[in-house]
């Protein structure tokens, strides 16, 4: 039984919308006119919400899904994140970003119940926080300069990016478990957390709402594996890879 991620993406987007709606008019009054800015933006800040689907392909996941009423989709979660992009070329941005994906799923043993025929329940918590640095290349010009002081954003700008970084991760299971030697049911907590290197690629697009405001959609794939603690013995490194998709609001300055 899934109890969901910590923050619903919809709430994040609503909050972002309110925040940007507050900020955007002020920015417009100072830095541009209707539909144009007085210069091409140099910095962009994006806040996004989305959905992350971990690959969950390592043997610890397999074991958990076999013993407990868990499926791959239970490790999927909402995602919140943000990044800061600094223009380093006409079509090139250096992007640093962070996101957070976490799932918390209640389950029970598939094949066992207790002596009162009640389910033996526990909760599995899985969280990843990737911190990345990427180069983002825009497949089309981001806008056009008219004269030397006016810049009009292009409505639709696709991009692709490659990057690397680290991912903080945490996997734990807490609740009731079975001692297969004695068939006793006991309460316990198993946890592993750490930091691992990652590689990341993404494709996305920006949809300019105004010169300073953009809707940004992106699909990312992250590849990483993390060591497990001694709570989990004999398992291969935890698969932290996965895909995610997000939609966010970008403020450009």
């Amino acid at each position, binding site marked *: 039984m899934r109890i969901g991620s910590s923050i619903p993406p919809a709430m994040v987007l609503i909050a972002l919308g309110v925040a940007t709606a507050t900020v955007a008019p002020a920015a417009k009054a*100072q830095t541009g*006119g*209707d*539909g*144009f800015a*007085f210069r091409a933006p140099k910095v962009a800040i994006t806040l996004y919400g989305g959905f992350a689907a971990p690959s969950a392909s390592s043997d610890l996941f397999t*074991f958990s899904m076999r013993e407990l009423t868990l499926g791959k989709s239970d490790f999927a979660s909402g995602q919140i994140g943000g990044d800061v992009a600094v223009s380093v070329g006409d079509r090139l941005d250096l992007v640093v970003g962070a996101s957070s994906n976490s799932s918390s799923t209640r389950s029970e*043993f*598939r*094949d*066992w*119940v*207790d*002596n*009162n025929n009640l389910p*033996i329940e526990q909760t599995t918590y899985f969280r990843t926080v990737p911190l990345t640095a990427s180069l983002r290349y825009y497949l089309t010009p981001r806008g056009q300069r*008219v*004269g*030397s*002081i*006016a810049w*009009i954003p292009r409505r639709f700008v696709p991009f692709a990016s490659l990057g690397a970084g*680290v991912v903080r991760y945490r996997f734990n*299971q*807490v609740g*009731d*478990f*079975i*001692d*297969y*030697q004695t*068939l*006793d*049911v*006991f*309460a*316990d*907590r*198993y*946890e*592993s*957390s*750490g*930091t*691992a*290197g990652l590689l990341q690629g993404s494709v996305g697009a920006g949809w300019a709402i105004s010169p300073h405001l953009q809707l940004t959609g992106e699909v990312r794939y992250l590849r*990483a*594996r*993390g*060591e*497990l*603690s*001694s*709570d*989990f*013995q*004999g*398992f*291969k*490194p935890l698969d932290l890879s996965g895909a995610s998709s997000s939609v966010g609001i970008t403020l450009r300055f």
Partner: protein
Amino acid sequence: MTTQRILLTTVTTIATSALMAAPAPAQVVTNASTAAPLAWTGCWEPMDAMPGSGTTCIVPTLDLGTLRVLEVAGADIKEVSRLVLDGSRQPVTTEGCFGWESARLAADGGRIVLSAEVSCNGLPAQVRSGAFVITPRGDWLHVQGSGFDDVSKARVRIFRESTNLVSAPEAVRRALGPVLGIAESTRESVAKRTLDAKDLLELQSLGVATPVIDVVVAAGFPKTFMLDAGGSSDVSSVPREQASVASAATRGVYYPGYYGFGYPSFYSYGDPYGMCSMSMWGMYDYSYCARTSQWSRYGYAGLGNYYGYGFGSGWIPGYGYGGGVVVVVRPRVPEDGGGSVVKGRGYTRNGGTASTTGGTAQPRTRATPASVNAGSSRASGGSTSGSSSGSSSGSSSGSASSGSSSSSGRTAQPRKP
């Protein structure tokens, strides 16, 4: 009375005026949207005018699609140009120059875009572009660019509506009288229009030179940009990115409280060879002398001819006492609010009131673990250890320690199908 009725009455009155000798086009336009050209109608005095200097009057024609530009000095009137606002090329043959000029009213009626290609004195034809803009305060800003985009400069003259039509020749008064009211309201309407991206793209598509576009943009945002003519005398030395302002010859005479706009000081920086000047859209343009005048390269040209007052042979009115000041656009420097960034205190506002944020952290409680192997098992009172294989980088930690997991007294049994 509706605007359309006013317009119809207006043009009818104009048509019956015998003072404007040129025949008016037959088409009668009653669509109020065509009234935009009336924003420029009236008599205008250049801000840099010398005492007793002349006036430029713009009067409409019957179809409102053509404006007649008159030079008025005392009782003398001379039609120096017709601006046919449909973008058609009108032949130019004057002052030893020949070529064409065109004028087009912008789609939103907010400006008139001018272009020309003229060859003078046997020199290769050169492209010119310009614009008539009504500023937010209702003045007529006349911008003219010369040369190719990468080296071109913009010259600006600002005209203020003449408040003394009584002294104008009767012919002008009769031509303008019926339209003054609607011209005023149209001018106010045009002045309130803000430049948008569509307008900019239109300017670009019409081939308006970069510095002209810049001035048009700057004119629409006087709180952000200034047309300051008090900078370097060498426009070419000013990086375009800085958008700073340069002028060939200016003194500290500023456009009253608005653009911070300096005016030419009427020194005769003009054509040292006395052979290359011609007026375009109200400005003498010495850059036609590019091959002969060392001054034109630096934008000195077009400012001089102080002694040349008179009608000359203006193509479009140029009174000879000034061809506009060379400007580029400079962003206004924001006012210092007195705030500062203080180490250890963060951003402060005026008066030093620091704004800080903070929070508190609470320790996270952790349960005592056992370990998971092929199946779950309880720790037997000591810390568990183990190793896992893998090639990824990074570190990991677990919370296995005392192994004080508790038994609930429950036992497991197979789930019944």
